[in-house]
């Protein structure tokens, strides 16, 4: 690395720019275990009462049930997105599909296309299919909207597998399906793991679809619960409570990121996005 430049001014500049984020995330953690007098910036007492929502269901509603629902939504996302994308990604990467160019182009366009603009159309589809106000509808929609991304990621991973493996399998008399299952899938395991984590995180953080497509469902997810706390009519906003619930809600996300950081970054960076 280039060394003969002064480091100090850079440190100052970047710290200043990052200050809002540092404050927000610093106080996010700090405020969950402290109390501050009104009108003061710094807390003056340590308390655990903001975490009472974990056992006192009157504080923020039934967070455990909401957490379970969120986990169901997130895991269902994995169950829909990963198998469907890995099959379609293989077909697109390696098999001689009719209209292959068209499919690829379509997937790419859909990948770039902002799916959220389709929400109104999706609403009608669910209404007509009788899936409006059900979690199944939300899962299917959310999964389908993530497919272009998933297929594209998986295609990238299949593309990186050497053709020789496949050719050797076919030479030895295995069918393409067997080759795919026994030889290729183990090669793209990192892709499957990364896509699973992505699908899980996407489902875990989702707010818009459950809120809009299943407002009357009794499967309240954490995002809807948390936002409901703030949108409630209470005059006194207990931000420390909101933050404690929020931190509780975000812990799995942070944990997953800490574990899979390197694998996720390559995908985030568009490395396999083309």
């Amino acid at each position, binding site marked *: 690395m280039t060394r003969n430049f002064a480091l100090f001014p850079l440190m100052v500049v970047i710290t200043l720019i990052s200050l809002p984020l540092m404050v927000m995330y610093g106080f996010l953690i700090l405020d969950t275990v402290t109390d501050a007098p009104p009108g003061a910036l710094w807390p003056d007492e340590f308390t655990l009462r903001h975490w009472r929502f974990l056992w006192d269901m009157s504080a923020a509603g039934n967070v455990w049930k909401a957490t379970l629902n969120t986990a169901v939504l997130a895991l269902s996302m994995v169950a829909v997105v990963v198998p469907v994308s890995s099959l379609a990604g293989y077909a697109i990467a390696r098999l001689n599909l009719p209209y292959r160019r068209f499919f690829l182009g379509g997937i790419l366009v859909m990948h*770039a296309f902002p799916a959220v603009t389709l929400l*109104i159309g999706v609403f009608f589809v669910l209404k007509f299919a009788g899936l409006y106000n059900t979690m199944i509808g939300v899962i299917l929609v959310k999964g389908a909207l993530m497919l272009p991304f998933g297929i594209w990621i998986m295609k990238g991973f299949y593309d990186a597998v050497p053709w020789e493996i496949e050719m050797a399998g*076919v030479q030895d008399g295995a069918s393409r399906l067997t080759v795919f299952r026994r030889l290729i899938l183990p090669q793209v395991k990192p892709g499957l793991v990364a896509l699973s984590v992505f699908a899980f995180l996407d489902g875990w953080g989702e707010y818009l679809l459950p809120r809009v497509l299943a407002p009357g469902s009794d499967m309240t997810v954490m995002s809807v619960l*948390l936002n409901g706390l703030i949108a409630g009519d209470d005059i006194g906003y207990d931000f420390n409570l909101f933050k404690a619930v929020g931190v509780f809600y975000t812990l799995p996300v942070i944990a997953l990121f800490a574990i899979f950081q390197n694998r996720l970054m390559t995908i985030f960076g568009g490395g396999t996005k083309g």
Partner: protein
Amino acid sequence: MSSFADPIVDGARRARPVRPRRAPVSRLGLILMAPALLLLTLFFFLPVALTGVFAFTDLSTSTGIGRGDYVVTPTLLRQLGDKGLSDTDAEAVARSSVTVDAAGLARARAAGVDDRFLDEIERRFMGRDYEAPAGFVRDLRGLRTAPRRPRDLKSAAALFETSVLNQRFATSQALAAQLEAMAPEIAPAVRARIVEASFTGARFTTENFRTLATQKETARLVGNTFLYVGATLSLFNVGLGLFLAVVLFYMPKGASSLFSTLWLLPRITPVVLYAVMWKWFTWEGGFLPILADQVGLPSFNYMKGSVVTAWATMITLNGFIGASFGLILFSGALRAIPLQQLWASEVDGASRWQQVRRIILPQMRWPILFVTAYQTLSLLSSYEQIWLTTNGGPGRTTSVWALEAFKTALSNYTGNLEYGMGAAMALVLVVVGLALSLIYLRLFKFSELVGRPKIEI
């Protein structure tokens, strides 16, 4: 090139004469694609098609989704009166008459009117018609079994009344026939107009687009959208992203990874919690207003209190999420620059600014183009963060096109969701989105990505 220079290719060409061969289509491929195609058809193509169709209707909560009926209501008559329906015709339509028939008796029986009373009505008045309800009530009063209380008598009599008003007809013919029977003096042309106006279902119309093209609100929404996308993109997604990437590039590894993790946080934080943090940061009683109060600056709810601060909040909070995308992408591109170029420039005495300006930035052209293209689309259509924070406020000063389309169709507090209008607004976004993503594919060399498979089994 001569055959001498490339004997292998030449030899191969001679051994295998050019034989156009259609590759066998992989059925396995289609089977593997099937689940994806099904889901994408249901939740991508179908919504696009439905958006396109409903954009040309006046579908809303009041028309309902599904088949409409034909209903003449007093309100409708008043509206038609404003448009030139004569008072005599309106009265004729509103006229009610009394017929004692089996249907009326059944209605009365279902409503719980005394059976002996009904039997007497059936014996004495069956098949009679009355021009006005008053005459019927008078006749009923003469009956031995009639209820004592005038109110009960009236409500029982009302059950025999028939009127076109407030009745639901499944077809236009049914309503027209009923109208003709009840008010034969109305001219057929007028009757047709009433029937047409009485349809409660959705109609095909280009009214949505005409409204969008003419109303003043549209210009402001478009202006807001441009300002929002332009400012967020240039200041944060590209500007701050590039700045952070370059600064972190020059920093030691530990500090660099610390800051890039910090800047990644807004992207991975669930959007609802991110909104909570910003509310805490900008609302009165929150961090910034308290800080401003302590140093003597104006202290109020910066997120919603004034137009300027609302805009600043909205752009910053979206920009902080966007900056990480640029940061990651630009950092990757920076690492691809050969370090020798930088060392050489240092030996030649280049300042850091010269290094950035002359060596780094020129090599960032493609990544910048990529980020711009990609993020323009996502900013153009994103509204979740805005919805959760400023929600277009104060008033509608920070509302953007996508948010307004969403609110028009799916989430407003007046209760009448205008699906048709929302679909029209969404259709504009869909068309712009499709056009931009096609351009973007062109730009980033689609054909290179589409290599043919090497095994054709």
